[in-house]
């Protein structure tokens, strides 16, 4: 196991290195400089700034400098704000995004799995049709529509929760629900399909033939097997939600990383773009690793193939 993990982590580092290099050169293709929007700078001021940040060095030199700093864990300084470290910017804006994303994924998958299981077991009854209806809504209606509806009815009309901002637990409820609808719908559909298939398999018939009850069959025998393929779709979903939904952050006025990222691209804030990209990439490869490990936890056949012994 330790050997397997070390190997995987080495691959992850290589992947991140490649992504960092690729993004760096891509970024240099974007026309303009971080200061192109600052009209008030004179030609000389501009060249002083460019010189200060080493932006007139040949690209390979800039690249080497950046990578050296990166190795030291230094992501550089933002161009947008005076002398604020990229790491600080990311940490500050990642907090709300990660919290929101994690809440949405937990809430969404938990209820999605339950909805899917119930729909599968009550196939072609009103329970199933209701669950299908919820899933179709969750998948087809964009999250900002839910956000708007929730804000209007639950926050403004009923006054149960605050309309916007990010100042405490009660502020998290509505954006979480709005963001959770998609993972809820996705999980419930996948779980339903898998459950129906698993429920028809021989080992479920054998479990019935042993005298197992309805509940034991569904939750002790079927669910674990039905979850194996579901993990695959959940992985990427987790990443997209962890990094927050830009729209939801905007609607609820949440100071998250999505907003930060878009702003940095607009103003060519190279260090922040790089830092955020690396963060997203890092999260992504980490989730892939976690998904693989999770497979092993759920499916004993993979545990061995992963080289446990």
């Amino acid at each position, binding site marked *: 196991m330790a050997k397997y993990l070390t190997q995987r982590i080495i691959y992850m580092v290589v992947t991140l290195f490649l992504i960092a290099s690729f993004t760096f050169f891509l970024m240099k293709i974007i026309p303009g400089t971080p200061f192109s929007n600052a009209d008030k700078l004179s030609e000389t001021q501009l060249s002083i700034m460019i010189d200060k940040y080493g932006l007139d060095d040949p690209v390979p030199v800039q690249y080497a400098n950046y990578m050296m700093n990166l190795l030291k864990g230094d992501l550089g300084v933002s161009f947008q704000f005076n002398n604020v470290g990229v790491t600080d910017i990311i940490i500050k804006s990642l907090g709300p995004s990660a919290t929101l994303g994690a809440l949405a994924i937990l809430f969404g998958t938990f209820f999605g799995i339950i909805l899917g299981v119930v729909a599968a077991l009550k*196939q*072609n009854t009103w329970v199933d049709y209701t669950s299908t209806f919820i899933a179709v809504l969750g998948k087809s209606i964009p999250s900002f529509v839910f956000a708007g509806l929730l804000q209007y009815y639950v926050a403004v009309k009923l006054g149960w929760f605050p309309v916007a901002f990010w100042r405490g637990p009660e502020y998290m409820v509505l954006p979480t629900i709005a963001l959770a609808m998609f993972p809820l719908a996705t999980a419930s559909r996948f779980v339903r399909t898998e459950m129906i298939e698993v429920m028809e398999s021989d080992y479920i018939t*054998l479990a019935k033939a042993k005298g197992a009850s309805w509940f034991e069959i569904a939750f002790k025998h079927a669910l674990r*097997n039905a979850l194996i393929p579901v993990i695959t779709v959940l992985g990427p979903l987790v990443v997209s939600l962890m990094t927050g939904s830009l729209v939801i952050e905007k609607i609820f006025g949440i100071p998250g990383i999505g907003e930060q990222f878009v702003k940095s691209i607009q103003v060519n804030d190279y260090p922040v773009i790089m830092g955020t990209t690396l963060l997203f990439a890092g999260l992504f490869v980490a989730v892939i690793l976690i998904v693989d490990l999770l497979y092993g936890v759920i499916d004993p056949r993979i545990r061995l193939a992963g080289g446990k012994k």
Partner: protein
Amino acid sequence: MEKILEVKDLHISFHTFSGEVQAIRGVNFDLLKGETLAIVGESGSGKSVTTKALMRLLPESNSEIKAGEILFDGKDLAKLSDKAMQKLRGKEISMIFQDPMTSLNPTMKIGKQIIEPIVKHQKLSKSAAKKRAIEILELVGIANPEVRFEQYPHQFSGGMRQRVVIAIALACNPKVLIADEPTTALDVTIQAQILELMKDLQKKIDTSIIFITHDLGVVANVADRVAVMYGGKIVEIGTVDEIFYNPQHPYTWGLISSMPTLDSDDEELYAIPGTPPDLLHPPKGDAFAPRNAYAMKIDLEKQPPMYKVSDTHYAATWLLHPDAPKVEPPPAVKRRQREFLEMKEGN
């Protein structure tokens, strides 16, 4: 001998998009204590449906027991509540399936899968159940049961898995064991081992077995009696000797003629011509008539009753009607009869 199970006039239908499939159309048979009853017949004849009905394992969504009784221990299983049925499954009646590769839960340890029915039905503690499970594993011929107990199905070969399935089925000493083609998916040497094991265990725990198979060779090896199914009915039933050496139904003749024998390897293997009946629109007369070289006019119009051949031997064919012309069975069947008589005289 004592009857342990009695199936009377069982009718089962499936409701499908194209209509009602009358899969079982009046099945009658008994199972005696300690005996092995083989059910043979081609694919789709209703063997699995009949036996699944005994345990009420047919899909609830589209199957229906339209009529009939399944008498077991003074109860009619066809009408038992789901709760009562759960108590009975795995305890009084157990089942072994065809494919050992798919009949164990891949994400559950073998030990846990064996313990489940023991804890459930015999109310033993976890540790007592584990002791019992290890005993059973040993009994079905699995070496290192303590180690195996902690392993997952994928760490077992096909033959080993079928032994585990047998262990699960026999964990609570059931009165009836239903084996639906338990050796079809295994290779020949393993097949023989599993059959030996089943015969051995049957003696030890004194259970009755219903053994479904395509393979008449296996029947001769394991069964006391044989029921031949065709088109959702039992068309002939009798002791092994009666079915092999004095068969009456033309379908049984066909089955026996299509059995490979030691000296038939050069010849083309005989196959019954035609296709099975359409159970969506079952024929008015004898379902086998269109494929029956000996069919008479009445075969197309009226279903034959069960004629008694001996106390243990019945067959549903108009050929047994007193007015029917005498016909000779095909040569392959007659050859067997001759061999059998010679063997008997030799003894």
